[in-house]
């Protein structure tokens, strides 16, 4: 007989004692969130024609792709029967938020991201198919889909269609991550999750995390290539990060104040949980280190005239803290939502396994994997070929 009671404080319904969703389900909204944010940066360059962020346009797109490709993997690892996962596409239940998300994901991956990248890179792909030798030549040839036309007319078509796709991509990116928020926000059984603010909070925190991720990727890539960072670009990115962060923080504060004021039945149990079991991850990591400190640092950069080196360093630290903070936010939503009983009379604990299928080790691997994919993408489709050509 499994002895589960030592981990429980107060009363939990017997089936609630063991958590259903693990760290992998924390990873999933975190990774998809990075995609939305990276894409928004790209759209700033393409649609809103903000010239200062143009240097990272392609980098942002490739970052988004690398993370989007990895996004379904934590879900597949979690599923009891991943071999049946195609059922979500074959018999999607239209009342289920999760089922509809499968199509939103597919739409975003194929019609928005892959198409935009292909259209933007097509000229480079065709050139590469001509100039490369060996197995890479075959790869580029396949990527051309058999068309070698890079005349002015076809490139013009690419540009117009690409612009349109990026335009379409903005609401699609909103839908992509807002939807993940809705998957949680629509669960009426869970008062920690059930709020109309959830999709909006998820969306803004996604944009914040994605921008921070691209900032760090940009700095790393520049460092590895021994190239100077475009400071105008970095400053613009940092400014975007700050503005969106302020909106995100305001939304989360609104949710908190609303709960405290209305003090409905669930509030007492949630409040207690935040002050005890979630204290480290919510108060310390998410709010203080992950939100207040980065906002303060980014504001400092805006308000005080600092030299380039100082700005670079502060922006980097702020971005890193931001990523940690947004990860903590996903943890607090997913894990926090399962730590308290739906009877509002007790709490359980979550111990992350290490080398298990849903443990820390696969989670770390899944965070490293997109970086490896990005490295491969940067080799296959170098963002800087544009300048060299």
């Amino acid at each position, binding site marked *: 007989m499994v002895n589960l009671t030592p981990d429980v404080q107060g009363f*939990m319904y*017997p*089936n609630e004692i063991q958590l259903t969703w693990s760290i992998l389900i924390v990873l999933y909204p975190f990774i998809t969130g990075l995609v939305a944010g990276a894409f928004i940066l790209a759209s700033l360059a393409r649609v809103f024609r903000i010239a200062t962020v143009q240097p990272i346009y392609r980098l942002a797109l490739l970052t988004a792709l690398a993370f989007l490709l990895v996004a379904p993997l934590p879900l597949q690892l979690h599923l*009891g029967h991943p071999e049946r996962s195609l059922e979500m596409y074959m018999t999607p239940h239209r009342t289920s938020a999760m089922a509809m998300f499968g199509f939103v994901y597919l739409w975003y991956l194929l019609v928005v991201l892959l198409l935009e990248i292909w259209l933007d890179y097509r000229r480079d792909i065709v050139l590469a198919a001509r100039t490369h030798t060996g197995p890479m030549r*075959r790869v580029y040839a396949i990527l051309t889909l058999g068309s070698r036309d890079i005349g002015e007319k076809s490139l013009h078509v690419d540009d117009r269609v690409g612009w349109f796709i990026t335009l379409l991509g903005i609401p699609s990116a909103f839908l992509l991550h807002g939807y993940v928020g809705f998957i949680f926000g629509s669960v*009426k059984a*869970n008062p920690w999750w059930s709020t109309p603010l959830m999709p909006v909070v998820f969306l803004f925190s996604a944009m914040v995390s994605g921008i921070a991720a691209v900032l760090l990727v940009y700095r790393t890539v520049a460092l590895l290539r021994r190239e100077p960072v475009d400071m105008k670009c970095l400053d613009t990115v940092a400014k975007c990060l700050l503005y969106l962060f302020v909106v995100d923080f305001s939304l989360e504060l609104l949710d908190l104040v609303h709960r405290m004021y209305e003090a409905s039945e669930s509030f007492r149990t949630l409040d207690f949980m935040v002050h005890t079991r979630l204290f480290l991850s919510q108060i310390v990591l998410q709010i203080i280190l992950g939100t207040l400190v980065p906002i303060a640092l980014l504001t400092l950069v805006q308000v005080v005239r600092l030299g380039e080196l100082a700005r670079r360093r502060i922006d980097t630290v702020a971005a890193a803290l931001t990523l940690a903070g947004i990860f903590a936010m996903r943890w607090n939503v997913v894990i926090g939502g399962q730590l308290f009983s739906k009877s509002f*009379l007790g709490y359980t604990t979550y111990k992350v396994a290490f080398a298990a299928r849903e443990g820390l080790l696969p989670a770390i691997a899944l965070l490293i994997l997109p970086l490896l994919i990005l490295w491969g993408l940067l080799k296959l489709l170098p963002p800087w070929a544009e300048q060299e050509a």
Partner: protein
Amino acid sequence: MDLTRRELLAKAGKFIILSGAALEAFESPTGALAADSKYRMADHYWAMTIDISKCIGCGNCVRACAAENDVPDGFFRTWIERYQVNPEDREHPHVESPSGGIHGFPPANAPDAKSFFVPKLCNHCAHSPCVQSCPVGATYESPDGVVLVDQQYCVGCGYCVQACPYGCRYLHPTKHVADKCTLCYHRITKGLTTACCEVCPTGARQLADLKNPRDPVHEFLRVNAVEVLKPEMATGAKVYYKDLDGSVR
């Protein structure tokens, strides 16, 4: 070597035909109802009644359910909670459910508190949030009112477990699919009652058929003070409790 349009189409065509042939090997159940079955779904709409004033917390129901349905250790398709409510502090009842009540309860006497047992199970909701949440159609309400899980189809995502306000679902630890009370569907379609009702010594738990005009449930609902769990969730729960105290969560 470049890929011509012809080559691309040829490759694609071969792939489709070969995978089509391979897939013929997959089983595709036709869904025909058993030919010799006398049971007609249209004649029944199942529910359950529970009389709190009769429950003695013996745990027979929990044990019988586990035996009837191979319920895995540590998980419960039905369970019993013991409440001790201090009249001065109704918002903080003391509740316990040691191993779901499967071995009964250690005797306790709280002289200042109102104490009682509350058996719980899947409420087979008419507007079930778990059915709404299932992405693939693996959990559903049958035409005769029973919420079931298609364990050959379930992908084990756990969304339904999160969506249930009552905590009656779990992911099966070895089958890796969602699992829960089936209202002993394999018994009630054969004219038997559920395992839990069969062994209840006081008749606190009774299977009910809302479509049967002679079923005692109609009188039960008319005469008694009846409530469902978490009525504010508007789930259309079909387990009706008599004498359920307001402090019950």
